[in-house]
Each structure stands twice: as structure tokens, then as C-alpha cells.
């Protein structure tokens, strides 16, 4: 939106000569690109991902893991600070040149690596310094071919990145859509395959799109690109119109529209698992479990500001409680309760665990609190494994034959009225992901509702006050200890639900499922998604667990599993630098920003009265850095 708006003054500004560059910046970016290319090559990721083909036989995920970099950095280097909507110069050859030079420097760095790989042997400290990497980088050709290839490709991609600054907004949207569609379609091949085997008989189309082994056929890729372009050009506009209609309706009749949306989402949630294949359902179950965990941690970290690094403890409490209560072979007590009865006891256990861990921890602040929670997270796991508790928990052997969450209620008669409740029996198999998905969605719905209600309640406000300034919150009359304990317990209960479903799903339970990494991954989901935001947390779980995979669960990109933590870390650093508010930021904040954008655009287009918009834009909040 802002790009088109800026074009008006940009036409007035003079162009700059290609050689009139900020050379220091260009060289810096080029060296960073080169370093990144060499580093990623030496992690072994490109070679490892080479088996995952995107377009047969040209492009694999391995090459893509290097090729996106010159493009991205070529785009980044041509970024200009636009002050107060005034473009300093007309974009043109200068941008292309800068992008190309950055790409060239990066390509030269990688070429140097190719040359060194051939002539020196550094495989002693660098484990990936080997022949396969050289073969990968040269595409099984000679060193000269490799050098030519990377200098050429990198320069071209850098130039392409710079080009994105020049083309109108629609053009760059088209390119983005085409790239995302083709790469996405290739990445989700298994998923699409799985879908096509369901109710819709789309096998023919899918077979035509994809190569028999793996990856898209070239023709399929072109077809998808054309489809993506069509979607951007036509459907995008339709969707925008639809969105506007929806917003208008929502303003006029908020209750009715909200009710319709809720019913629509609920209907989709109920129908969806039927149409999805086994693999997709299983994937969604994993995502759902982490949504549940992240929503719980979001209350503790996002709302109450308690940095809990041992959150996995409550996940374990939920899992082990269900295992002990429902499994016929649990070593100590074995009441073999049905799942839905056990859930009530699980809530009690989680509350106790929350109070037990929370009480000593809650009086600490900041770093100390984080370190102590980290300790408690491990203590719970080690206790479960210890000889002392193995009589109850099975120790390192774990527990087996945990039944599924069968629903078995009804058949009771009310004594006075004489009305017998109809018997309801639903066999929900733990091994059937479709069944479990319903169970997960039930708990996620509860978690979303609870989070939403709490956020806007008195207690939610008390949590936020404690997060912002504990001693002032106390001076306002908020009992900070109680407030923090409440947050801890609510978070514990939500995590225990996830643990309970996990146990019923897997059918067995081992302490190794509850390592510290799980806590970290949940925290990363909350941070990447947007701390304190329900939609953000859900989005974070989909992106991280759905695509990259959870700590023990494979995601869509199963090939990534080895480099998952590397990507997690890179993503976390990038988010902290560029988008600290998370994927889906604070609603209110973004509304403020959009209003600003709107006013500025309107002002530039001269669509609204100049005085009105002008005075609005010059209030001091208008100039807050975006």
C-alpha cells in the first residue's frame, strides 16, 4: 500500500548514478553475504537437503538454502530510510548495481570456498569439509564450473533482489507469490499427496504436477506459477473486497457477525479432520499440542511476565497422571479410570504441582526466577526417572498400554425425575490421529476461550500490572503473590491437558519426552508468535512445529529436523532484531500503525481534506518510528 503511495513524490526526485554508492555499506553487506553462504555450506545443510527436490531435476531444497541469501541481501542493501514519506531519489540503475555488486562479492566468497575445498584439506576441525560438499557446490563439475556457477548465480540473484526495489508493488507481490507457491507446493508434497488420497479424487492432477520420485515437474511448476499470478491479480482484489464487506458488517452488527464467524470456524474444525489424511491429521495433532502448551505458557510469560523455563514439568505431570490413572499396567497404583474421569484428577494434580513449584519460585524476580524454574523443570523429570519414584512411574522403562480417550457417558437415571440419560459411547482410539485431533481441538478451544476471557478480565489486568511493575502493582492494592500463583496454576493446568492428550495419543510414556528442550521450544513459539497474543501464539505453533517440527515430532519439512535448532536460533535472532513484537503483533498497536498509514496515503493521494489529515499526522504520536 505504502509503495504505490510513495511513487508520486519519487517521480519528482532525481535519479542517482549507478556508481554513486555508499560503498562501505555495499562491501559490508557483500561480505556478510559471503560469510553466510560459506557458513551455511559448512554446516552441511545444503548437501543434506539436496535430496529434497523442488523442481525435478533443476532445483533442490539444498540449493535453495543458499540461493535465497543473495536475493534477500541484494534486496536489503538497497533499502533506503524514507523520511516523512519523502523519497530522496528516484530508484533505478543504482539499486540494480548495488544488488549485483553484493551478489558478486558473495559469489566470490563462495567460489573461494570451492577452490579451497579442492586444494586444501581442513576436514579435521570442519567435519563437512569433504568431497560431497565440493560435488554439491560444483554440481559434479570441475572447480572452474563451480566458480562460474556461483559468481553468475549469486550476482544474478543480487541483481534480482535490487530489481524488487524498482518494479511497482504489484510486480514484487507477484514474484513473492510465485516463489512461495512453487516452494510451498514442493515442500508440502507429502501433505498434498495425503490430501488427494482422501475424499477428493485428485490423484490425477497431483500425479501430473509431481515427479514420480519427488519434486515438481517443470511443467507443473510453471502451471503453479501461473495459478499463483492469477490468484494475486484477481483473487487478491476479490479477497480485499470481501474483507472490506466483512469489516463493514462487523462494525454494523458486531455480535451477529462474530457469532457467524465462530459457528463457521467451529463447523470447519468439525468437518476438516474427516477430509484430511492420516499424515495431515497427525501433523495437526502435534501442532495442536504445542498450541495448547504455548497458550498456557503465554499466560505465564506473556501476561504475568514470569519467565518460566521449566514449563515442561507441568506437561510431564499431566502425562504421567493420565498414564498412572488409566493404564492397566502402571506399576504402583492402577485404578484404570477412563480418560475423561482421569482428566479431572489431572487438573487437581496440575494445580498442586503449580502451587508446589510456584510457591518457592514466585518470590524471586527476573533472572533468578528463570534459573530456578529451569532447575525445577529438570527436577520433575529426574524424580520421575529415579529409583525412588520408579515404583509409581516406571522409571526409565516408562509406562505402556495407556488406553485412548474413549468417551463413555450416560446410562444414569436421575432418581426423582426418573429420566434416564441416553447412553453415549464413542470409542476414540489413541492410535487414530483423526480421533485424537478432535480431542486436541476440544482442549485448544477451552484454552483459547480461557485465555481470551482472562486477558480481558480483572485478573488479566492485575497480571499485566505485575508484569509491568511489580512494586507499583502492589501499591495499587494488587496481591502480587496471589496473582502470580494464579497465573502459574492456570498455565500448569493447560500444560497438563497437553500432557494428558499426549499420553493417550502415544499410548506409552517415557521421561525422555520431557526434556528441557521442550520448554525452550514452547518459549520460542511464544516469542516468535508474539508474546501476549492468542492469534500470535497459534501462528507461532503452526510455523515452528507444523513446518519445522517440534522437539521430537517431525514437521512438514522432515529433512530439516537435523538443522531445526539452527533455524530456530536464526529465526529467534532475526525476530528480536526486526520484529520484536512477534509474527502477529499487538492488535491495538497495529491498528494505530494502520491508521497512520491510511492517513499518510490519503494525504499523498489528496483524497481527503488536506488540513484535516495534515493536522492529524502532525500530532506527536504520528511520528513514532514504525
Amino acid at each position, binding site marked *: 500500500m505504502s509503495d504505490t503511495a510513495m511513487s508520486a513524490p519519487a517521480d519528482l526526485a532525481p535519479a542517482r548514478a549507478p556508481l554513486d554508492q555508499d560503498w562501505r555499506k555495499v562491501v559490508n553487506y557483500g561480505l556478510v553475504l559471503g560469510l553466510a553462504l560459506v557458513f551455511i555450506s559448512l554446516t552441511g545443510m545444503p548437501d543434506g537437503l539436496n535430496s529434497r527436490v523442488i523442481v525435478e531435476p533443476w532445483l533442490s531444497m539444498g540449493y535453495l538454502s543458499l540461493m535465497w541469501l543473495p536475493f534477500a541481501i541484494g534486496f536489503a542493501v538497497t533499502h533506503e530510510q524514507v523520511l516523512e514519506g519523502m523519497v530522496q531519489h528516484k530508484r533505478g540503475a543504482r539499486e540494480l548495481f548495488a544488488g549485483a555488486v553484493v551478489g558478486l562479492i558473495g559469489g566470490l566468497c563462495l567460489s573461494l570456498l570451492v577452490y579451497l575445498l579442492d586444494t586444501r584439506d581442513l576436514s579435521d576441525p570442519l567435519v563437512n569439509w569433504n568431497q560431497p560438499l565440493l560435488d554439491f557446490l560444483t554440481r559434479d563439475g570441475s572447480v572452474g564450473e563451480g566458480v562460474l556457477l556461483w559468481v553468475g548465480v549469486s550476482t544474478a540473484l543480487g541483481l534480482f533482489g535490487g530489481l524488487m526495489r524498482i518494479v511497482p508493488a504489484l510486480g514484487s507481490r507477484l514474484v513473492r507469490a510465485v516463489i512461495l507457491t512453487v516452494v510451498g507446493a514442493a515442500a508440502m508434497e507429502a501433505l498434498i499427496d495425503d490430501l488427494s488420497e482422501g475424499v477428493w479424487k485428485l490423484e490425477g492432477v497431483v500425479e501430473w504436477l509431481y515427479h514420480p520420485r519427488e519434486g515438481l515437474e517443470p511443467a507443473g511448476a510453471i502451471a503453479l506459477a501461473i495459478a499463483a499470478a492469477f490468484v494475486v491479480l484477481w483473487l487478491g482484489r476479490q479477497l480485499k473486497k470481501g474483507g472490506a464487506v466483512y469489516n463493514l458488517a462487523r462494525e454494523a452488527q458486531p455480535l451477529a457477525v462474530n457469532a457467524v464467524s465462530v459457528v463457521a470456524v467451529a463447523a470447519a474444525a468439525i468437518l476438516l479432520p474427516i477430509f484430511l489424511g492420516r499424515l495431515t491429521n497427525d501433523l495437526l495433532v502435534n501442532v495442536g499440542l504445542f498450541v495448547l502448551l504455548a497458550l498456557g505458557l503465554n499466560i505465564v510469560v506473556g501476561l504475568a511476565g514470569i519467565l518460566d523455563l521449566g514449563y515442561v514439568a507441568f506437561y510431564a505431570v499431566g502425562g504421567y497422571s493420565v498414564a498412572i490413572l488409566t493404564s492397566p499396567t502402571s506399576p504402583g497404583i492402577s485404578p484404570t479410570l477412563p480418560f475423561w474421569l482421569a482428566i479431572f484428577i489431572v487438573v487437581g494434580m496440575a494445580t498442586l504441582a503449580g502451587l508446589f513449584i510456584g510457591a518457592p519460585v514466585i518470590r524471586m524476580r527476573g533472572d533468578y526466577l528463570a534459573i530456578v524454574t529451569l532447575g525445577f523443570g529438570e527436577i520433575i523429570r529426574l524424580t520421575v526417572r529415579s529409583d525412588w519414584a520408579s515404583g509409581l512411574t516406571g522409571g526409565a522403562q516408562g509406562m505402556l498400554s495407556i488406553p485412548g480417550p474413549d468417551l463413555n457417558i450416560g446410562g444414569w437415571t436421575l432418581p426423582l425425575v426418573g429420566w434416564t440419560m441416553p447412553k453415549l459411547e464413542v470409542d476414540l482410539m489413541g492410535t487414530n490421529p483423526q480421533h485424537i485431533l478432535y480431542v486436541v481441538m476440544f482442549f485448544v478451544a477451552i484454552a483459547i476461550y480461557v485465555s481470551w476471557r482472562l486477558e480481558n478480565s480483572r485478573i488479566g489486568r492485575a497480571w*499485566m500490572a505485575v508484569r509491568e511493575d511489580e*512494586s507499583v502493582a502492589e501499591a495499587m492494592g494488587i496481591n502480587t503473590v496471589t496473582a502470580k500463583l494464579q497465573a502459574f496454576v492456570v498455565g500448569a493446568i493447560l500444560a497438563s491437558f497437553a500432557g494428558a492428550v499426549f499420553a493417550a495419543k502415544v499410548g506409552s510414556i517415557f521421561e525422555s519426552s520431557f526434556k528441557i528442550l521442550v520448554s525452550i521450544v514452547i518459549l520460542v513459539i511464544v516469542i516468535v508468535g508474539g508474546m501476549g497474543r492468542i492469534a500470535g501464539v497459534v501462528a507461532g505453533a503452526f510455523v515452528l512445529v507444523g513446518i519445522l517440527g517440534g522437539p521430537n515430532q517431525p514437521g512438514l519439512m522432515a529433512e530439516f529436523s537435523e538443522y531445526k535448532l539452527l533455524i530456530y536460533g536464526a529465526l529467534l535472532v532475526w525476530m528480536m532484531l526486526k520484529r520484536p513484537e512477534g509474527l502477529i503483533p499487538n492488535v491495538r498497536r497495529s491498528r494505530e500503525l494502520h491508521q497512520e498509514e491510511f492517513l499518510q496515503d490519503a494525504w499523498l493521494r489528496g483524497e481527503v481534506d488536506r488540513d484535516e489529515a495534515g493536522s492529524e499526522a502532525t500530532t506527536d504520536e504520528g511520528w513514532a518510528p514504525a
Partner: protein
Amino acid sequence: MTDQNGAQPLLEMRGINTHYGAVHILKDVDLAIYPGELVCLLGGNASGKSTTLKTLLGMVEPSSGEVVLDGEVVNGKPTSYLVERGVTMVPENRRLFKRLSVLENLELGAYLRNDRDGIDEDLERVYDMFPRVKERLNQKSGTLSGGEQQMVAMGRALMARPRVLLMDEPSMGLAPALVQTNFELIQQIHQEGVAIFMVEQNANMALSIADRGWVLQTGRVVLDDTADKLLANPDLRASYLGEG
């Protein structure tokens, strides 16, 4: 301490001693705040001013002595007990909840109240008093200017419908012009019948609007007099105002 017109003090400290661990902060402090008066506690750095406030509000437990509210000993009661009964603090440096909106800050001031109508009424009163605050209701309070933040901090305290307002260094961190406005605001609130207990380093300014004052030195009350006499007191002028 003189019993003014035979009235009962609203809030009182009787022989208070407060320790932080082994460090003796307050030593036999006696204070009394009567309904509707404006009093100030003067003292330099580390004289125990903030600890006095915290002890009054129950955030720090005194090791001996009594804090008395309306004739009732309230030692060991939680802070919320005092806040509910009309004792409210405006913390040092304003200390707003920076990432929350102005409205949320004001609502948190009324955290312990459940009378929605009364809260709305008081919100209106705050808007009347500070029209600027109303313009900024949905803005994050951290983005306000220093003067506006001071208004929100005062408004937040007023939302508790206080009978006595404890103010920790209201002039700290403000530009001189703002200090003046700020003291005018304090007087305005005082004229509405709220007793004000102000802790200050800016003795001249504080004494110019106060009825009475105390001077605290290393945890001990060394002077206790009316504001006029304190201003004229050569000891105070010499040691505290840096004159003589």
C-alpha cells in the same frame, strides 16, 4: 504532636522502627496526618523517606511501633487493606505501567473497587481535571511526555478515591516549569478535601504549599513544626537548604 482541634489523626505512625536486615533505617519515628491537611516530610538522600512511605502502606513490615489508620492498628495488614480504606500512593518517578494504555492505567488505580458507576464517575472527574489525559486514553502510557505521565500517575491514584495521598518525590525528574504545574495540581487535589502526605527533597517548594512538615535525618525526625516556622528555621536553612 499537637492534636489539631481535638480531631483523630487519619493516618499515624507511633514509635516506628524499621530494619532492612541488620540495617536500622527508621528510628522511633512519630508522624500524624489529619484529615484534609497537606503535610510534607523533608530529608536528603538515604534519610529514610521512601521507607517511611512503604512502612505506612504496609509494603515493609516495621520491627517495632504501630501504624494506625482511623485509630486501628494496621501493622501486618496487606497493602490492599490500606488501599481499600483510602490510603493511596503516587510512586516516585511516576512509574506508570508503560506498555499499558492510559485508560488501563487509570482502571488499575481503581483495582480494588467494584462499583462500576462510581469508577466511571471518577474517570470523568479525572478527565475534567486533566483534559490532556482524555485525549490520550488509548495511547500506551510509556509514549507520553513527562508532564502527561505525571497527570496519569495522579489520575491513577485518584481513581482509588483516596482520603490520603502519599506522594513520593513529586518533583523528581521533572523540568522546573513542570514542577510548578505539578505543585499546583497537588494543591488542587488538596482543595477537594484529600489529605496529602508529600515526601520531598525540594524543601522550599514543598514548604511553600504545606501546612506542616517534618525533617528526617538518617532515619530520625529532627524537626517537627509548621511550614512557616520551618521555612524560617535557621538550622534548616543552614543544614538543609544549603544557606548560611
